[in-house]
């Protein structure tokens, strides 16, 4: 695809862990052979339960994980996994992160103007005056008052701190911003303020977002396409409308039906698909499909081979043995079309 700004190809991340027995090494594979693309100016959401590897995948793209990364991450067609030194710095200018916890991601001993300026100091060689001007503009862009520049993080509320985190991420004029659960620590009313701000900034600065979240309501509002992850694998990757109106993978359907809704028609019509139990132990994954132990429609074949992520028409890709070429949910039509 020509308009893909960011592309992950067969990306895997594994962490060495202590194994039982002398001299043995074991690995926990947090992200396993994952591929997805993000188009320029759009938002790709990665959703999944905790432990599904969504944050690890995103941080691997920002070159911020300690584990062993294999595969390719293409930014504008150039692989960024092997970069070092100046080239890595250049890549960091172009990819920035907004973190989940606005309390622990800001240095409590630094004034917020210095926090926002830090990426400029580290990654660019702009003159002092220009840096000051950029910081002023950013404060205005994220809705903070200029006189607040001299304050410390503890003097701000959670929502304001998240605005500071956003200003910091924007300071180097990045093309890609990774929002790692950027609103989940905030109160609902403040969450709306930040989500609106993120969408406005995307329009104004032409940003491309990689939006990590477990909240499907928020994802539905923010994204253009979605990748659903389960136990380190992408199980479904589709455009927003396709995924929410015609979810194909049983896990996606279950995830959607689990969200409590205020829409009474949805509550009445949706057949709640309860998936029993908890995700499997990552050290002892099922042999075939990883979802097999919780899947309501699993068949004998699902235990044997892992399903590949296959195209089922349009850009709708699913990793399930039971989804045929006609792109129908294995749970039956009434469950898939939730209305």
């Amino acid at each position, binding site marked *: 695809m020509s308009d893909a700004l960011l592309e992950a190809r067969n990306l895997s991340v594994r962490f060495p862990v202590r194994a039982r027995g002398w001299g043995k090494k074991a690995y926990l594979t947090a992200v396993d052979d994952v591929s997805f693309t993000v188009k320029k100016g759009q938002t790709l959401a990665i959703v999944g339960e905790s432990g599904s590897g969504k944050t690890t995948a995103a941080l691997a793209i920002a070159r911020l994980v300690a584990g062993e990364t294999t595969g390719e991450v293409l930014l504008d067609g150039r692989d960024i996994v092997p970069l070092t030194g100046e080239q890595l710095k250049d890549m960091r200018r172009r990819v920035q992160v907004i973190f989940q916890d606005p309390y622990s991601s800001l240095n409590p001993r630094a004034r917020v103007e210095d926090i926002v300026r830090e990426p400029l100091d580290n990654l660019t060689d702009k003159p002092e005056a220009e840096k000051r001007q950029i910081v002023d503009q950013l404060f205005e862009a994220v809705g903070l008052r200029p006189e607040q520049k001299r304050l410390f993080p503890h003097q701000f509320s959670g929502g304001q701190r998240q605005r500071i985190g956003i200003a910091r991420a924007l300071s180097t004029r990045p093309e890609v911003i990774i929002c790692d659960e950027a609103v989940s620590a905030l*109160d609902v*009313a403040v969450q709306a303020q930040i*989500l609106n701000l993120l969408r406005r900034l995307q329009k104004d600065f032409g940003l491309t977002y990689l939006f990590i979240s*477990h909240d*499907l309501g928020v994802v539905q509002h923010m994204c253009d396409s979605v990748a659903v992850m389960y136990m380190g694998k992408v199980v479904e990757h589709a455009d927003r409308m396709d995924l929410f109106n015609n979810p194909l993978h049983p896990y996606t359907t279950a995830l959607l039906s*689990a969200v*409590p809704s205020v829409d009474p028609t949805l509550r009445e019509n949706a057949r709640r698909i309860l998936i029993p139990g908890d995700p499997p132990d990552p050290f002892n994954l099922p042999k075939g499909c990883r979802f097999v132990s919780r899947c309501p429609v699993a068949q004998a074949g699902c235990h044997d081979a892992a399903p590949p992520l296959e195209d089922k028409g349009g850009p709708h890709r699913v990793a399930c043995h039971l989804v045929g070429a006609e792109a129908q949910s294995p749970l039956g039509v009434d469950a898939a079309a939730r209305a």
Partner: protein
Amino acid sequence: MAPLLKVENLRIELTTRAGKAPVIDDLSLELNAGESISFVGESGCGKSMTALAIMGLLPEGVGRVTGGRILFDGEDLTKASDSRLRQIRGNEISMIFQEPMTSLNPVYTVGEQIAEVLRAHQGLSRTAAHGMAVELLDAVRIPNPKGRVNDYPFQMSGGQRQRVMIAIALACKPKILIADEPTTALDVTVQAQIFDLLRDLRRQTGTSIIMITHDMGAVAEMAERMIVMYAGRKAEEGPVAQVIERARHPYTSGLISCVPHIMAEITEERHELTEIPGIVPGLAEFGQDLCLFASRCPRRTERCVSKRPPEVPFPNAQSSACWHAEEM
């Protein structure tokens, strides 16, 4: 029939460095036997404080009930002795907390922690209590309860720990179960399992449930009636479906429309989310004779900042403390 729990004009004051502040200000509510209600609001609105007051668990030396009554089965809990409260707590009224990680004791097995409640309140022997613990684990649908009863909390997942908390809370068949954000720390699929479990247990035991949450979707799934709280006061009360259909307080409608919901049919267009500007006022501003929501309210008029709005009842069992409730 008299309500099971009746809170009348409750006022709770917190002692802060700046002086005393009313964290709960003239709150009244009723809960009938078998009913499920929900307290909704942002953090810092006094939802948890109300629950702690009902349990008699206000932080000692800091929080104090300074007015009003909490009547449980006709008995005023604000005047009850410590030993009487200990009898009621965990036996007649019990509570599950938000963080299943920190509310279980890490050095006792889950079986011992469930058995403790039964031995303390019902005087069961060690063996009988252990047997009951296995039954309770089975009731909250933990697979292989006989084996898991000897597990320590760290050996269980978040969802299973919350199930253990529910087992402890329901061990003595309480009349009221208070659930303080029971699923906030859990994944949606696990949240759906826990909601399902709570609904079934309520049907079987007839326990009244008070659920504290900020998620309107969860309220719609779980509760029959909701009480929206803002800055220590009741903003709105009414049957859940009605309030969601037509809120009579701008704070309620703001809470509903500021969250992007998953609807039956997702369409291409996406509206800007309605913002409630600003944040919940600090404790120092509580208790003034004005509408405390006025500073964030799109309908603010002169009257809102000069006098506290009274609670206006509507014929359909809804009520709202807003000067503009009629027009909404």
